[in-house]
Every structure is written in C-alpha cells, then in structure tokens.
C-alpha cells in the first residue's frame, strides 16, 4: 500500500522534528492546481502505460481562471482542447490528491506523494513516493476514471522509444551503453505491456 504522508503542519509530527522547523517551509509559495488528463498524453512508468497528467493552475489570470479563482471557464477551455480535469478526491480513499503546507509568501501546494524537506532552514529535494504515485495512476486507468489509451497512442509511444534506441545505436559511443541498455529494456517492457493491453481489449 502506498505510504501516506502526514501534513507537517498538523499535530502529528515526528518527535525528533523541532516545532520551529515545521512551522513554515523555506520553500517559495506554489499555487494550487488540479490535475487533468488528455487522451493523447500518455507515458510509460513502472511497467505500465499511465496518463501524463498536466497541472491546471488555479491562479487567477492563468488559462481563464477568473479573478476570484473560480475555474469553471478554465475547465471549459481545457475541455475544448480535449483535457478532462480530475476532481481533487479522485483517489482510492477519497482524500484529495493535493495538499498544502505553509511556506514563504503563502502556501506550497503539492501532491500527496511528495514530502517537501528542509534542513537548517534550507530547502532540500523533496522525498517522493514514486511507487505510490505510479500505483495511483494505474488505479485511475483500472477503475475507468481515465479511459484506457487508444491503441494508436500506444503505438506512437513505442515508435518514439524505437527511434530513441536507433538514435543511441547510431551514436555508437561506448559511454552511452548504459543509456542504450536502459532504452532497450524499456522498449521490451513497453511492447510486453502493449501486448497485454491488446489481449485485454
């Protein structure tokens, strides 16, 4: 089961973390957003084809979000371009996929699989539950929240990866061998996943 991170501003804080450190992150504020999917926008992650979600910023003035932060028109605009916005509670447990912590100049909004870190008042790279995130993306597809990818889209992704392998082979540089091996392994995994999907459809 994916790890659930506690809100650093809540009472349940690790006992070895001084209160002063959790009062506010040293990170700059990051605006709230919703995630949206597009039938053409897919990626291969952790052995499966999952949607490549884009962030729809909820900042007034960005992509038709209005002065009060209402995103109705923004959602309509996105839908006209083929995007569909995921409701914030589109998760197995119904809890929002977006969380917020106090930060410099406002709030730092992040997905729940990311745990922002700081040390001595300085920003560190966030800890990310990649497995949990990939599991959620697969859940979106398996439950039909995001429709399964069109076979043509999968074919395009595979062709893209084949081209990448060809390019790396063509460069014929020994130092690129690890990258080539990884690309070939990924291509094999993509073809296997595509065959499984085709068998299911």
């Amino acid at each position, binding site marked *: 089961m994916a790890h659930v991170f506690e809100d650093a501003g809540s009472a349940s804080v690790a006992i070895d973390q001084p209160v002063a450190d959790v009062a506010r992150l040293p990170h700059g504020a990051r*605006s709230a*957003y919703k995630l*949206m999917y*597009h039938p*053409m*926008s897919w*990626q*291969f*992650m952790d052995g499966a084809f999952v949607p*490549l*979600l*884009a*962030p*729809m*910023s909820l*900042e*007034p*003035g*960005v*992509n*038709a*979000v*209005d*002065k009060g932060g209402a995103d109705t*028109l*923004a959602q309509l*605009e*996105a839908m006209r*371009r*083929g*995007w569909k916005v995921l409701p914030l509670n589109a998760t197995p447990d119904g809890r929002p996929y977006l969380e917020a912590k106090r930060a410099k100049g406002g709030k730092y909004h*992040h*997905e729940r*699989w*990311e745990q922002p870190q700081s040390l001595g008042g300085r920003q560190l790279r*966030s800890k*990310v539950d*990649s497995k949990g*995130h990939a599991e959620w993306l697969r859940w979106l597809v398996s439950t039909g929240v995001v429709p399964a990818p069109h076979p043509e889209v999968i074919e395009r992704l595979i062709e*893209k*990866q084949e*081209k*990448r392998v060809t*390019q*790396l082979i063509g*460069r014929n*540089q020994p*130092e*690129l061998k690890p990258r080539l091996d990884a690309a070939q392994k990924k291509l094999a995994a993509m073809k296997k996943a595509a065959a499984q999907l085709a068998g299911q459809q």
Partner: protein
Amino acid sequence: MANEIYNSGLSDVRLAQTLASELALILQDRFSLWGDPAIRYVGNAAQTGSAVIKVPLVGTGKMAAVAENAAVANTDLDTDSATITVARQALQHQISGLAEMVDSVGVAVPLLVQGQLSAAAVRFMEMLCAVGATFSEDAGSTGEDFDSDVWYEGVFGLMEAGVPGPHLAVLAPEQLTQLKSDLRGEVGPTQLRTDHQDLFTIAGAQGDRYTLNGVGIVTSQHVATVNTNTDRAGFIFGFGAIGYADGTPAPIRGAGEVVYPAGQQIFVELERDASANLTKVVGNYFCGVGLIEDARGLKFISKKK
C-alpha cells in the same frame, strides 16, 4: 608603555558594524518574457465590458478544380476561439516612518515602488510557465535526462506540424545543462555546427538567450513540474501559441498618491496611516496569460534535478 588606545577599547565611540553604501539584490530568478514578441499580445480589457477576451481563430480553405460550367458548392469556414481572462495581480508592503527615517541604503518607499516592476515581470513569467505545461503534445520521457534526442524530437514536432516561426523554447535550467552535457559527446555533423559550439561560449547566466538549430532558448526556474514534482515540463512553441492580455486601470479617485512605474499597466498606490505612522505600498497589475492554439507548441518532459 601604558594607556595605549586600542580599537577594542573604544566601544563607546565605535560601531559594531556599518552598512555598505550600495544595496545588492538577493539571488532570485527575475528573468521574464514579459513584453517579448514571442508571446502574442491580444489586447487590453479596459472599457470593453468584460475581463474575458476571446481570441478568434479562423482557417482558410483551399481551392479545388471545378469544371468550366459547374456551379461551386459552399465550403464551411473553419473557426475556433480561445479565451484569456484578465485578473488582478498584486503585491503589498507596509513600512513605518521610523524605518524610513533611519534608512541609509535606500530601503524606503521609492525602492518598494520600483520593486513592483520586477514583481510584475516575475509574476508574468510564472503565469507563462504554468500555461506552457498544458500543451497536449510532448517530447521526452519521465525520469530521463533532457538530451539532444529529446531536443530534436521537440524541434521536429514543430517542423512536422508546420508551425510558423520564430520558435522559442523555455527550459528549466537543469534541462539546458543536461542538454549541454549531452552535446559535449555528440559526434557527426552536429559537432561542427557553430550554434552548437556557441552554446558553450555563452556563460549561462540568468537571462542569457541561446540559439540552437534556429530555435531561441531561454531558461527559467518557474518552469512547471509534473509527475508529483519529479519531472520538469519545459516547452517549445511558435508565435501565436500563447497570448496575454492586460488592463489599463481607470483613473484612480481618492488615492493618496499613484505611481505608474512602467507605462499605464502597472500602478502603485501609496496609502498613509498617519496615526500608526505607516505607509502602505500596493502594486497592481491586471493581466491574463492563456493558450491560444495547442497545436503550435509542445512540452519537454525530463527528469527534475
């Protein structure tokens, strides 16, 4: 000898520290494409009746061969539109009279007023990068470095879609450093190109602009992230892909003092609380940025550093 006068003994007539006379800015990404010709300006919302500007788009057809005496049938017109919503962007500071009175380096109302210009520019860049992450087509892959293959995938994507130029790429700084690292090992005809070599002569300082394969490149820390902050979403686009609108404020009535640090679009109001001896400096900028045509751009997905 006795009674020497040492500096350490002059605490009554010496200062522990003094301020250097020149103020310096803290490192921050202040680069912006505000006013850049790559971003289409769609208009001013002032006195139009709405804060939403609809950008009309129309296609042109093509002729077909018709027999000498045949009647030609009507062809429908291809139309579309995009909307850009203008909203208020603002920044406020408040400074006391005592703070202003003792100031010796310029941290006072004039600095706070001028600072609104930079604040508006940075805000614009942030909004632009948020829009850039919403192109539906992409190049690159999650968890992988940005390299020359990803770069060409993006450039070819625009070429194959027939997007008119000039083309501009907005990358996260690490996307460009990853690209440069990869180009160090690139062999074949590309290693002889002067624009590839020029990429290594430019320092890479904030605001530097590069050209590679005829495409302009700029970098920004405000480039959005995807996949729960593990990947960056830089983007490349042709003119007409992204647009912005702004609004000239109506004449401000009843204000204390109003300053226009850059034309009419940004206005800074000063409000005085005499009782508390405080001066409020509020900068406002009515602006909206939006995607006009999705087909004119795409995003670059690569591993975030």
